[in-house]
């Protein structure tokens, strides 16, 4: 319970809302699947980790970064570089575990590199990672062209051993990572440091913490999560295509984080919220499908939900904010 007392009231309300929403949507999907002989609720549930695990895991890493007052817009490009490394290793005949390790280490390294750049250059994280979004995709394309002979823009990976993490073990990996991360957040010291930095860097410094170091740690920890997400993402796609892979992925992840109640300016939020936010966005799309709405409406509904929920939330807490401003 201490976990919830640490958060603010608005975050707790958001968690409650998302939890109720997810339950309702699951109930609705259960009802619709029980009506139809061709669809089963269990199959629908089994689908969730396969599609959702990269978003949830990358989102949890990003939550830590946003807590600490940073942001990372370049996650999709980092995943692309990690995927390209995976493809290169595969192309050179490396065994599966070497490919997974290479993919993981690349993602962790790039995220740490972002943190180092933010710390050393002193430019706002939005700019650094916006540049990274372009830079890393270029790096991935150049790497793929240079290190893979006969690379024609896409590399197809059709071996079961190389696709095991996403196709067979996604649910287990997702469960382990989520439980471990929530326990770490609830009982560990690291994430409290992030929250402190996001609330007030000055107070952090006066309390004897090193803001630059905490910021760097937040990017490193975000990388640890991003690595898992990258492995799951890369092993799920059929073809590794550096030019087009994962475009717009970062926006979906940020959407889930923000919907989960994390303050985009740092200092408040929970990882649990991010998990529920991602789940809510996915379930609402599925529920719409079962209600007979066309597949094309999916993106529009995701956007509408983000705008409506956050707009409503901000409008409710507006008076408090205006009063604070006057004080």
């Amino acid at each position, binding site marked *: 319970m201490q976990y919830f007392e640490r958060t603010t009231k608005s975050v707790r309300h958001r968690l409650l809302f998302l939890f109720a929403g997810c339950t309702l949507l699951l109930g609705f999907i259960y009802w619709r699947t029980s009506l139809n002989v061709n669809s089963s609720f269990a199959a629908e549930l089994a689908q969730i980790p396969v599609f959702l695990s990269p978003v949830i895991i990358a989102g949890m890493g990003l939550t830590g970064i946003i807590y600490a007052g940073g942001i990372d817009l370049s996650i999709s490009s980092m995943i692309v570089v990690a995927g390209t490394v995976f493809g290169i290793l595969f192309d050179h005949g490396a065994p599966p575990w070497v490919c997974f390790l290479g993919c993981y280490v690349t993602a962790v390294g790039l995220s740490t590199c972002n943190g180092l750049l933010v710390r050393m250059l002193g430019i706002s994280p939005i700019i650094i990672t916006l540049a990274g979004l372009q830079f890393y995709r270029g790096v991935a394309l150049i790497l793929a062209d240079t290190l893979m002979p006969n690379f024609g823009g896409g590399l197809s990976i059709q071996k079961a051993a190389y696709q095991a993490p996403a196709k067979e073990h996604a649910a287990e990996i997702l469960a382990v990572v989520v439980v471990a991360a929530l326990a770490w957040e609830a009982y560990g010291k690291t994430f409290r440091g992030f929250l402190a930095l996001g609330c007030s860097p000055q107070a952090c410094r006066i309390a004897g913490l090193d803001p630059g170091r905490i910021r760097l740690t937040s990017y490193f920890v975000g990388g640890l999560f991003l690595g898992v997400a990258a492995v799951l993402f890369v092993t799920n796609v059929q073809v590794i295509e550096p030019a087009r892979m994962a475009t717009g992925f970062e926006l979906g992840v940020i959407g889930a984080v923000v919907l989960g109640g994390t303050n985009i300016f740092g200092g408040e939020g929970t990882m649990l919220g991010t998990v529920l936010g991602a789940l809510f966005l996915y379930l609402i799309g599925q529920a719409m499908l079962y209600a007979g709405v066309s597949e094309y409406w999916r993106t*529009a*509904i995701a*956007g509408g939900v983000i705008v409506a929920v*956050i707009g409503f939330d901000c409008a409710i807490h507006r008076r408090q904010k205006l009063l604070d401003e006057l004080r």
Partner: protein
Amino acid sequence: MIRFLLIVLRALRARPKLLLPVLFAAELAILAPISGVQFDTAADFARSGRLYATDLITQSAPMIVLAVGMTAILMTGGIDLSIGAMVALVAAVMARFDPGPNFWVTAVPLGLLCGLGLGWFNGTLIARLDVPPIIATLGTLFLLRGLCEVLLGNEEFGTFFDVPGYTWFGRLSGSLLVIAAVFAVGGSWFYRSRLRRELLMLGGNRVAARYAGIPVFRRIVQVYTVMGALAFVAAICFTARNGSVSATSLEGLELQVIVAVVLGGTRVEGGNGSLIGSVIGVLMVAVLAEGLRSAEMFHSDLLPFKIQHLKYVLMGGLLVLGVWVNRRHVSTAG
């Protein structure tokens, strides 16, 4: 040569504002010959230079138009991530109309109305409901992209070339005229009225701006609404050149515009901004892209990878470098 560089460097230290034009000139000097501009005789230069300028300007016209609005938004400390989707949606709405003489009295006014409405919606979310700009426009980005998909499906709508007189906007004269008109209006509004100072003040310190008597909420809504109108203009420039629109066209445009504007010396946190800098920023990005495209065509065996892929790397590096240099010059100035 070295002495010349020293003179340039000294001049730059005296006037840091010259840095951007000098960088642009250096970029042009390197990349224009690669892109096929010839310097042998005056006639050659005129012909090839005209071709080059046509390509450059018609291609970057939508971005220049959007950069004007984005500069104003960044000055107030906001950001608009939804412009790419907004341009695509306005184009999609116009694409659903019959291409005939009636297009000018039905689709075009409706497109303008659509742009204004979308911009006003963004502004209202941000000013009246107090949603942080990056989140509000991220949400509308999804919303508008989704509406594009609903309107167009997986098809590509390409009826714009059948509209009488429409392709004129895709040619050099049309693009130049549109850019000039946007600049005449925007520039005079910016530099001849209090608006620029008010926007800068808003970005610098919102509470202080309110106490100084600036109608904060109204100004924010106005800035985003103008962005919507500019998205409509950009949609016309884009469709007049491309002739077609699909649900995924112009994805990632918002980030390119932000890169260009920030490169031009506008601060993302607000409180600083320059229109001319933004245009130079857009042109720098366009010259880079054009140069690399021609290098790919004429010297493709120079490097072991596709030269065009260098574009991403260079753009990322350029952005960090530009911001870092700007930041240093601000901090030395006090």
